[in-house]
């Protein structure tokens, strides 16, 4: 269907070697986009053929601009960016360190800002419109205990999405986001296994649709937001949480 097609578009997805990012890369590819994937590790086997893979540590000095340069070299028609790279480094608040705070805010928030900036500079120079999608989290709207740095970084991404949307609208660049709730990925599996008997049970009870999400549940929303079907949507964040936060999470 033309409305949801990304044929003729090229997308960079940061943090797409596994989990939600990998599913997004697959979804965009399936919708007809040329795709550049990125991660810290070696190229993962699951990436479709024809997808370029660029490994780098986005937290290195100047890495965001370099990644955009390399992505443009691989796909000169690059007009779509998904800022998805992120992780969780919190320990209980009273034990948090400056290093862990910096690591969280650098990776989750700072690299998204500068990757989006390098990407937008390129599009504005080229006089072309485009689309950005930022992966935040339901933690950007609702607090979770002992997740303070992560929550702050995701709250920052929620406002980054809206603020960038306003700043880039005059250049024909739409900026939207997804806010996943509890999704089973390599990153969250560790937490889920350790809390299988208490917190996870509570979350499963609170998720209206009755089950933890799959990474693939996030792919369709990103494809939609990047496609012509969303041409009048900007600054909007689609929550993908099975209803987890609709009547609030609370505690067990």
């Amino acid at each position: 269907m033309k409305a949801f097609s990304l044929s003729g578009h090229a997308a960079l997805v940061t943090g797409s070697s596994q989990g939600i990012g990998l599913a997004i890369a697959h979804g965009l590819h399936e919708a007809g986009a040329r795709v550049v994937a990125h991660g810290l590790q070696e190229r993962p086997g699951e990436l479709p053929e024809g997808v370029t893979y660029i490994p780098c540590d986005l937290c290195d000095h100047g890495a965001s601009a370099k990644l955009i340069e390399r992505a443009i070299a691989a796909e000169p028609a690059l007009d779509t960016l998904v800022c998805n790279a992120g992780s969780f480094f919190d320990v209980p608040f009273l034990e948090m360190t400056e290093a862990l705070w910096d690591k969280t805010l650098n990776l989750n928030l700072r690299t998204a800002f500068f990757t989006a900036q390098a990407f937008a500079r390129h599009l504005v120079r080229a006089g072309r419109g485009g689309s950005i999608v930022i992966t935040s989290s339901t933690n950007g709207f609702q607090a979770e205990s002992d997740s303070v740095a992560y929550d702050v970084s995701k709250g920052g991404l929620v406002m980054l999405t809206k603020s960038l949307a306003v700043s880039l609208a005059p250049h024909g660049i739409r900026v939207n986001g997804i806010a996943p709730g509890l999704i089973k990925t390599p990153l969250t599996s560790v937490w889920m296994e350790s809390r299988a008997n208490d917190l996870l049970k509570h979350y499963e009870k609170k998720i209206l649709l009755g089950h933890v999400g799959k990474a693939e549940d996030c792919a369709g929303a990103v494809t939609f937001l990047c496609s012509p079907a969303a041409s009048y949507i900007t600054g909007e964040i689609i929550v993908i949480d099975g209803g987890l936060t609709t009547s609030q999470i609370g505690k067990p």
Partner: protein
Amino acid sequence: MSTPFSLQNRDIWVIGAAGYLGQEVVKLLTALGASVLCADLPGKAQPAPNTTPAGLDAADIPALEKFITDQIAARGVPHGLVVMTYAGTAKKFDELTAADFDHANHGNLTATFTLARAIGNAMAERGSGSLVLFSSMYGTVSPDPHIYEAPMTPNPVEYGVGKAGIQQLTRYLAVHYGKSGVRCNAISPGPFPNPSVQHDEPAFIDRLAKKVPLGRVGQSPEIAGAVAFLLGDTSTFITGQNLAVDGGWTIW
């Protein structure tokens, strides 16, 4: 057609299908393979391939209940329901009577509640379905009276009050039906003035466009993608959400 956004073999009921936005929604849904029951005030819905036009005054509750029973008997429980009706007056704030206010609330809230509950219950019994209710940017923010200078009529208070109610109805229904596999989401359109207003009132259109980060009013085909997305299989982990299709109106 093989796209994750396909609505092949889905039966969708669109209430308010003959309106400026409704017509475009129906067009996209049928293009994606759905069969559509197009309900609107008697004589409004016109025949088109894969649609069934039907006359209905949704504010007439006994007629609405009979309509639902008859249509379920005739075509089964729908996979999706889209409610695009609204009620309002053209009266000035100080001239609005209590009866006017009740009348608008009845059309906006009571009729939508009656419709969504009847269909929601039938979907819950089957164990699946998607409800999409139309709110508005004026369910989220207040109209700016300066935009509606004469000869335009101010956007009336009873309209936005009802549309704000739709957002909470959406969350409540998402929680109520979640465990039964029935999802409920809202769409909040921004400024989508109809073609005659776009043609006849350029100064008004200009004032609206200035309020939109994307710098223009929406065109009717731009609403349809959000509806198709929320009805289909790429949004199966999304419920209780309000999706703004407003060019960024509500973010600044």
